[in-house]
């Protein structure tokens, strides 16, 4: 696992605050957790200087107190770097990565809709994937959300944008 170790060492040397969280789960699979305030610095470094040129997708997670987001970055040699950040549910705000990966726009719109996070810098546009008349404040992928919660609320009218 020479390749994976080189990546771990580079990340640990450059960003000592996250050194303990870097885990090599198997060949070509590296997971790491990054504090929210340093996330963009680490993400940009991986994308621009370490060869992780492809954003596969991002996964949103409901972890109780926090909303967590895992960015899956791939390198041409098949190595996948999974960078995770967590933000409190009381103020769920993350920053956009579309300046580095313009193709990631749909992934960000998706977490806005299904988990109710605000993505700073996400250009306005049509929402995805929920319907236009979906009621505000209903985030279906949060753990406490149940489909019958829709019975009690009014569906809105007209087209809604997000971002």
């Amino acid at each position: 696992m020479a390749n994976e170790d080189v990546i771990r060492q580079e990340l640990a040397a450059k960003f000592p605050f996250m050194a303990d969280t870097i885990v090599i789960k198997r060949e070509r699979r590296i997971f790491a957790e990054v504090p929210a305030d340093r996330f963009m610095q680490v993400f940009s470094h991986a994308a621009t200087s370490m060869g992780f040129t492809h954003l596969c997708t991002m996964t949103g997670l409901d972890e109780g107190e926090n909303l967590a987001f895992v960015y899956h970055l791939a390198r041409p040699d098949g190595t996948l770097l999974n960078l995770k950040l967590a933000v409190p549910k009381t103020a769920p705000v993350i920053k956009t990565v579309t300046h580095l990966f313009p193709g990631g726009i749909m992934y960000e719109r998706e977490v806005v809709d299904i988990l109710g996070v605000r993505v700073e810098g996400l250009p306005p546009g049509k929402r995805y994937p929920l319907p236009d008349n979906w009621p505000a404040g209903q985030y279906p992928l949060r753990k406490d959300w149940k489909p019958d919660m829709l019975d009690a609320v009014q569906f809105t009218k007209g087209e809604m944008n997000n971002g």
Partner: protein
Amino acid sequence: MAKVTIPIGPQHPALKEPESFSITLSGERIVEMDMRLGYNHRGVEKACEERSYIQAMYLLERVCGICSHSHSTCFIQAVEEIAGLQTPPRAQYIRTLFAELERIHSHLLWLGVAGHEIGFDTLLMYSWRDREVVMDILASLSGNRVNYGMNTIGGVRRDFTKEQLAEVLKGVDILEERTKYYIEVATEEPTLINRLSGVGSLSHKDAVRLGTVGPTGRASNVDRDVRRDDPYAAYKDLSFKVITDTHNDVYGRTLVRVGELMESYKMIRQIVAQIPDGPVTVKAPRKIPAGEAVSRYEAPRGEDIHYVKANGTDKPERVKVRAPTLANLPSVSTMLKDNNLADVPITIAAIDPCFSCTDRMIRVKGGSKKKNEVLSWESLRLFSIGWYLERGIDFGSLNKTMKKLDRK
């Protein structure tokens, strides 16, 4: 000239699935395109959280009507990784065999759709007829044309005899011969070349920047293929080429797909020759220990990725699916810019957006006095010749005339 914005979709004859495109035109020229997706959102990820792993696998197999094996394999690989299961090599080979058969059926289907979108319906009829060969292989091996239900946690559900695998090779020989003809059509037929060249251009830089995957990216010389870069199943044992092209347009995407068909035949021959003996499944626990894994898979349309998080129960904590079409759609606006309105259908079709194709029909009513009759290929052909003869169209004499013209 004043700009006009026209809506295409969500329901529109030119689209095979619901998506809404809003296209701004200056005359015939496309200035801008905006899209609205999500009309087929079924809440599958949420539904998986309320189902056991094996139920979730069957549900995920139904995410897509064409890449059904892709999604179930991608998911099950992640689950097996979390559970630390060693899937037997024979099961890995069977998964790979189905993966390549699925790619053949998907690419031949695409070739037909592409032909149809440019008014070349003969190509549609030919390639869909030939696609039946691979559909029959899939049906005879798994019992189904789509949604094969091959996977289970820890392996596959069916094993095959040497004779069954030998039958597969017979089909592959026919398909290879037909594909050679399609390559000839794609490289020599001026109508096809002229219609597709320069349409839906996507530069290499844009293809990388927008994160395109699969044949869409490879036609813009993005040399990425999960099968080679991040090998799974039995791909590390197989030798194959990753087909790329530098045309950067719909024509390039056609060449990549027909080229990939030839590689798939090569791989299937290797699989049948090398498949190891042994069990096809290992015992899997009902409860999966806590953990997380990311699984990547090269579906016919490109990289499919599943993220699975387990919490120690028999139900997943989180399942995330990113199908290849979502990665490719942002590039469509760039492809369409400065193209003609008439190029919209073929350009959208060229990323091969996924739509369901689960209909099957082998029982034909009528045609003879028996109520329900199963027609063989030959009797169906004779039936259709007879049907036209009754209406005064004689293909027999037409064929003779064509042959005479050929000789001249």
